[in-house]
């Protein structure tokens, strides 16, 4: 799914690279406010949904080559954060949807997520 299509589905405002949003393809998504959860999710062409708006969101995205970040719950990033995203070629958008609603809309529209493998200890118990 294209980033522009995501913006349309979530009635999101695109804050950076709105002209390029048509060219950026997203295969899967990760929704979290914890950066280590995002880091554990290493995939290609990922969109990140988060309610966090500190610079570490952009750092994490930079390390993982994440090109699309969606701020949920109407969160607006600072000018500093927008500038960091601009430098990294990251499309930022903000939606008034909650995390649950935004993820649900994208899932229904065909973006699939991931299920973690059962930890070894739990697998042994069952």
């Amino acid at each position: 799914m294209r980033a522009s299509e995501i913006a349309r589905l979530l009635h999101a405002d695109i804050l950076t690279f709105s002209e390029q949003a048509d060219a950026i393809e997203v295969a899967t998504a990760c929704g979290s406010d914890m950066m280590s959860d995002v880091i554990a999710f290493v995939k290609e062409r990922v969109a990140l949904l988060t309610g966090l708006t500190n610079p570490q969101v952009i750092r994490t995205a930079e390390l993982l080559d994440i090109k699309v970040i969606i701020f949920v719950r109407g969160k607006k990033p600072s000018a500093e954060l927008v500038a960091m995203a601009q430098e990294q070629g990251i499309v930022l958008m903000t939606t008034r949807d909650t995390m649950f609603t935004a993820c649900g809309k994208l899932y229904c529209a065909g973006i699939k997520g991931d299920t973690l493998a059962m930890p070894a200890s739990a697998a042994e118990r069952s």
Partner: protein
Amino acid sequence: MKFSYMIPRLDFTAAGKASTDTKRRLTQIGLPIAFIKRVTIAMYEAEMNVAIHGGGGEASVEVGTDRITAIFSDQGPGIPDIDLAMQEGYSTASEEIRNMGFGAGMGLPNMKRNADELRIDTEVGKGTVVTMVFHIEKGAS
């Protein structure tokens, strides 16, 4: 090639710069993208731990012909129980830190998953040294 960084304490604007700068350098060298990702996300977790738990410290990265060695050291409180700290979900981070997106207790597990070798030398009241080794993967970048 060897380079080093200062990691300031609890500075959420600066934190992560050692890892992102290393990513830029390794990209310039032309190492495979998946390998660079593995190295720099493990480094990022270690870097955040130094900034958040270790009271600040330093990082040094050495790029050899067949391996990358990244060492993170601090003079912070140390880790009393490493086995406990290694468990997924274990964290001593404050509510304030959690609200900034850290303290999921997944940092050390993420490092272990991504590094080929992980060594933690720690002494309570003295500090912690985390050493990670990554074997350079040959192949298309």
